[in-house]
């Protein structure tokens, strides 16, 4: 019996520090997501969360015996941004997670979008995470602040909710 070649499709999940990337992958991955979290060293960032991703997060969805969809989460701290180029190679699309409750981080999201837009020619969607928080900014306002054109999907998201994460991935896949 001939050996089957496994086809791997890759989606990158990126965003500013503490945007919820690890949680996003955890919510949808069928395997226990591989995470490389370490204690945050920057006091400013530690006030937001105790552990941070230093290399990558990894999740997997098996489509069929021959095809798997891999989700890679980028590290949020700027000092690890050299990983972005590595993770971006061969990806079919990417999700930019934005913390809707922290407008001060929107500028960083703009920088990330600009960076990925320069190294990748693939579709992306913006997921406005933490929409279950009453102080969250609405996606329309986030679109305005990120100066995104209408054809780029900007979606509400709750990274802890699998259905919400599914909607984001489906929107990305529809854009392919």
């Amino acid at each position, binding site marked *: 019996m001939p050996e089957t070649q496994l086809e791997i499709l890759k989606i990158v999940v990126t965003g500013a520090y503490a945007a919820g990337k690890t949680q996003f992958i955890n919510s949808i991955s069928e395997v226990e997501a591989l995470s490389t979290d370490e204690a945050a060293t920057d006091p400013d960032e530690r006030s937001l969360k105790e552990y941070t991703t230093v290399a990558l997060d990894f999740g997997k969805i098996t489509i069929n015996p021959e095809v798997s969809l891999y989700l890679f989460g980028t590290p949020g701290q*700027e000092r690890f941004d050299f990983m972005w180029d590595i993770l971006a190679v*061969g990806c079919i699309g990417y999700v930019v997670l934005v913390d809707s409750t922290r407008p001060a981080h929107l500028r960083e999201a703009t920088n990330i979008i600009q960076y990925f837009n*320069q190294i990748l020619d693939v579709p992306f969607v913006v997921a406005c995470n933490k929409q279950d928080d009453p*102080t969250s900014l609405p996606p329309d306002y986030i679109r305005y602040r990120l100066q995104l054109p209408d054809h780029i999907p900007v979606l509400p998201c709750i990274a802890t909710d699998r259905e919400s994460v599914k909607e984001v991935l489906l929107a990305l896949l529809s854009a392919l």
Partner: protein
Amino acid sequence: MSLQGNITDLPVEDLLQVFTMQHRTGVLFVSYNQYRAEVYFGKVALHAALIYHLGIPSQSPFLQGLEAVFEILSWPDGKFHFEMESQQWVSANISTSVDYIILEHYRRRDEQAKQSQWLNNKPTLLPNPPVKAQINLELDEWRVLLQINGMASIEQIASKLRQNPEILLVTLEDLQRKGLIELASHPFLADTRPYAPAWSFGSNGESYHHTQYDATLAISYHYRATTVSNGPMEQPAKNTPSTYSYPGEASGYLTPVVVPVLPNPERDKPALPAPSSLQKQNAEPKPKVRRGLLSGIIAKIRGL
């Protein structure tokens, strides 16, 4: 052959377009006050631009590349002459098309014009902030809020806080969205007033104080010094339990949640161009996903 004149008669943007469209090779020299600019045209595109300050006895240019071109485009006056097939040449420092440069110049000019308008805007505190939600302000927002009195203009507040006005505007916009302030006659922002109520009666009551007198509303905010112990701002008065009252509303306490955000030059640098206007450089080739496979993936994810 050379061509000379004044840029009030023949603007620099016209010169740039004419020389590139006609594939002229040469150098355009422009002088304005203490500055002398050199713009080099290759056969098909703009090649380089340099500006020297004549008052500085240095051989190195004062400005070069794209920024030099934008600077020259902003000069209101100046003399120029163009030398075709000039022997003088420098290494390239521009790889952008003239069309892009001119459009970007107009965009910057328009923004500058708008900025001079909104810098005079005097934000005011809203007399009837919404209630029954949480205030969730960051330290930067508190710093700005403390400066708002209906009399200080955005320019004055920016100067006092030593902040870039554009960054200040982002904070003001957030405060307006949260229903705390109003930016009167803002020329180019959509109305960002609350999508959701932003104020609430808290239960702890330790960190907010607000008084109303005469027709002017004065608000002072006090918050836990401990929460912002690393903060660079002058600490407001020590945390004092205080009450909140509006005519016709019950008194109560407000509990703002203060999240310290320390100055970060990298984070606070001026906004980059809008992603929508980005040109992809060195982009990886687009991986292809088979149509049939894509529908399989979508079906699988729907079924998860």
